[in-house]
């Protein structure tokens, strides 16, 4: 390949136009950034170079707004084999095995083409995981849409779900869990976050680094087209609708299945030096990042890149975001091995360049240097912004006390109404469209708390969950952040597993608004503190900013993906009630729950939608939560529990109803003794106890006669425990306080409300 000096070949005329006509602005670069580039290069960038800088320095690739915030996260721990910075993080699960995982957003493409936008989001996160040498074994997705009374929202929702299923089902990775929340803050800016978990041995770990001078660089997978040029810029843009619409791509899961198998086969040969998927900013970011990790350079001849369309120029080839492609650096002389393996899978592997020592990303087109940029300028010199954070005024206007409701008798009706809220209702309509069973290792399918997936050939299993409540974070960014991690971890321990590590997807509004940036900073503090407390370091993640539309920012929505380890699959716990007569206990501080109030609860949105955001989120006791979860785990390990279910959206009664429905068993519940004193409760205390979401609680059931053992264990962890009733075959859930019967709800009624809600919206 010809080596040449830029002064001879870089098209100066083009550099002049870029400057004079300020073309860089149309790429999203500011004047100041342009000046900085000139300084770094010692000359003016030409068209291709400006394009490369613009995508590498975009919010999406450079994390320029969030980089400083992310530094706060704890990222180390004895279990961490690979922290943030690679395509996915990796944690040890013992016996020489490890899991790789990561979560990623595809919000903006989904708003415009929901099926393909969501599908390619899944495709992208799968590539991130198998690039690490791991075989993907599970997918999850965390979704936010507007309310279902809007036809366009129903379209976005239905198509996104179909797209997620379409991709995961085809490629043969089970979709085992996730969450869906409906709130009009997301109406024009839906969120689609996809998470993938992969399994590997320690020896199989691959990384995305391009080292070894002269080693060949190969592009493999789909041929390159003009799709998605400037997608990375677009992902950070304020109003995706107004932007270049060609940035949406069509996914090809069949191609990706072949790519997955071929890449894993190739990595297993041990001849791969580095491998990296091509996501946002395609060839540009993958090559720059690989070189940056190795401190090397790369020379790429775009003429060699197999293209789908005719007459693509170097600018287009470097910036294309065609899906289902990978960049591979092989050991010298092993090109043919790669070609052979890819051929078996009907795929093309093409050498397009070499690793160099000079630290330059050099792009050749027909032998001429089209771009020549120091890799460090693209990666290390990318701007880091000190954005202004300002505490939003609304936070100081929140009411301390909950609303005063007029007493009403119809508690059961209120419960049915809550259960029928799409956010709380059964998500069957969603997850029945996902193949959750392929690979035959799914022990807990969607519908319980955490999903549980077996590790073949061992007694082990992993529990996986995604969790996030934007409304809570909106009401109290710090506490909301803490709670997001706490709730994810609580779901994990409820299955009997030990939380291991976190991947996070930070979905926020426009960071240029100081109030939004405040939300980001404060909630990240909360997330960090909680991750420390639960010893679950952040090992990977993703940031999606500018989630605003029509001037409305979404709720600050950090989504936590968490993985836990279950040493013995036989100790697995699920949330359904098991047998008549089993005793029902609540772990956690019911007395506080009774006082904490309704701030941030789903109940408020049923009763008083206009006022629902006016009340403060209750204080959260992180220390108590850590103790609660440790206690839960020890009960699980001792085999004392029959079922466990955490109390979250909708509060205690919803949790009870869900376990009743899942087990098809009723219950007699007495909440008398919770206050410690035998007195009738004030109405607000009753509501707080039944529907509040302020305090971490876990409902467990145990066989008769376990009280002493349970109390002993709880005492050891200083966690309150209270027996509240029994499971019964009679198909009714009864809840009373002293001699007043508050709820008499046939399971049938609970079921109808909960199970049919989303489907009945979607039939409209």
């Amino acid at each position, binding site marked *: 390949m010809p080596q040449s000096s830029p002064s001879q070949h870089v098209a100066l005329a083009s550099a002049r136009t870029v400057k004079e006509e300020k073309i860089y602005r149309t790429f999203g670069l500011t004047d100041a950034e342009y000046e900085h580039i000139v300084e770094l290069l010692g000359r003016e960038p030409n068209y291709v170079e400006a394009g490369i800088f613009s995508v590498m320095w975009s919010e999406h690739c450079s994390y320029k707004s969030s980089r400083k915030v992310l530094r706060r996260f704890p990222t180390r721990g004895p279990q961490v084999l690979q922290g943030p910075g690679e395509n996915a993080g990796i944690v040890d699960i013992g016996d020489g095995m490890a899991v790789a995982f990561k979560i990623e957003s595809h919000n903006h493409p989904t708003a*415009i083409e929901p099926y393909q936008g969501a599908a390619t989001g899944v495709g992208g996160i799968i590539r991130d995981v198998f690039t690490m040498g791991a075989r993907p074994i599970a997918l999850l997705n965390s979704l936010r849409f507007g309310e279902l009374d809007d036809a366009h929202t129903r379209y976005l929702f239905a198509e996104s779900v179909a797209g997620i299923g379409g991709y995961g089902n085809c490629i043969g990775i089970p979709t085992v869990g996730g969450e869906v929340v409906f709130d009009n803050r997301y109406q024009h800016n839906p969120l689609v976050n996809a998470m993938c978990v992969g399994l590997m041995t320690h020896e199989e770990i691959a990384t995305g680094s391009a080292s070894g001078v002269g080693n060949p660089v190969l592009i493999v997978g*789909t041929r390159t087209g*003009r*799709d998605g040029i400037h997608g990375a810029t677009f992902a950070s843009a304020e109003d995706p609708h107004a932007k270049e619409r060609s940035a949406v791509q*069509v*996914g090809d899961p*069949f191609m990706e299945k072949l790519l997955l198998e071929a890449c894993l086969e190739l990595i297993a040969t041990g001849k791969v030096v580095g491998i990296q998927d091509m996501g946002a900013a395609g060839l540009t970011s993958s090559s720059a990042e690989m070189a940056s990790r190795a401190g090397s350079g790369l020379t790429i001849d775009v003429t060699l890149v197999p293209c789908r*369309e005719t007459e693509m120029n170097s600018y287009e080839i470097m910036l294309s975001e065609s*899906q289902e492609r990978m960049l591979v650096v092989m050991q010298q002389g092993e090109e043919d091995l790669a070609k052979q393996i890819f051929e078996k899978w*009907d795929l093309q592997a093409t050498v397009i360049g070499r690793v160099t020592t000079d630290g330059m990303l050099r792009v050749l087109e027909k032998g001429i240097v089209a771009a020549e940029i120091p890799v460090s300028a693209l990666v290390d010199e990318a701007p880091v912004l000190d954005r202004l954070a300002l505490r939003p005024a609304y936070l100081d206007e929140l009411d301390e006390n909950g609303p005063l409701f007029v007493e009403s008798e119809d508690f059961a009706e209120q419960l049915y109404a809550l259960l029928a809220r799409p956010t709380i209702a059964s998500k069957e309509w969603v997850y029945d469209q996902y193949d959750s069973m392929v690979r035959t290792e799914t022990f807990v399918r969607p519908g319980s708390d955490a999903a549980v997936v077996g590790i073949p050939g061992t007694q082990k299993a992993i529990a996986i969950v995604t969790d996030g409540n934007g409304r809570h974070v909106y009401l109290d960014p710090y506490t909301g952040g803490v709670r997001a991690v706490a709730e994810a971890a609580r779901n994990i321990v409820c299955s009997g597993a030990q939380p291991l590590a976190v991947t996070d997807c930070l979905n926020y509004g426009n960071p240029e608004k100081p109030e939004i940036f405040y939300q980001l900073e404060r909630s990240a503090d909360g997330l960090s503190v909680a991750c420390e407390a639960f010893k679950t370091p952040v090992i990977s993640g993703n940031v999606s900013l500018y989630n605003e539309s029509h001037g409305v920012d979404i709720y600050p929505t950090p989504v936590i993906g968490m993985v836990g380890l279950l040493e013995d699959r036989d100790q697995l716990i699920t949330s359904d009630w098991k047998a008549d007569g089993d005793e029902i206990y609540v772990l956690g501080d019911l007395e506080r729950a009774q006082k904490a109030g309704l701030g941030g609860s789903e109940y408020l949105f049923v009763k008083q939608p206009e006022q629902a955001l006016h009340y403060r989120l209750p204080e959260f006791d992180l220390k108590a939560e850590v103790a609660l979860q440790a206690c839960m785990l020890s009960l699980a390990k001792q085999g004392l529990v029959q079922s466990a279910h955490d109390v979250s959206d909708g509060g205690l009664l919803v949790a009870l109803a869900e376990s009743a429905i899942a087990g098809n068993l009723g219950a007699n519940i007495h909440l008398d003794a919770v206050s410690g004193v035998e007195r009738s409760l004030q109405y607000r205390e009753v509501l707080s106890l039944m529907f509040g979401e302020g305090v971490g609680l876990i409902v467990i059931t145990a066989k008769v006669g376990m009280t002493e053992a349970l109390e002993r264990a709880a005492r050891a962890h200083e966690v309150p425990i209270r027996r509240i009733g029994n499971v019964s075959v009679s198909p009714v859930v009864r809840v009373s306080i002293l001699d007043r019967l508050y709820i008499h709800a046939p399971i049938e009624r609970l079921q109808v409300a909960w199970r049919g809600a989303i489907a009945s919206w979607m039939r409209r």
Partner: protein
Amino acid sequence: MDFLAKIYITLKESVLDPQGTAVTHALHTLHYRTVSDVRVGKYMEVTLSAASTEEASTLIRGMCDDLLTNPVIEKYTYELVEA
């Protein structure tokens, strides 16, 4: 008046057509080697009534833009005949 509209929906040229690629590949394996390209799209027959051809045309374009296609990745043509 009753009309029958035949609507042809295809992916835009620049958009990847995985189905088309798979079919081309399969045809080659089946020895239809002279096939150079296949694009796979949708075909719809819509029966409707309207006061005039113009109105029918307007309705069809409306349906295509509102529901039947997504202009981000697809394009369409149609024919209208009186039924």
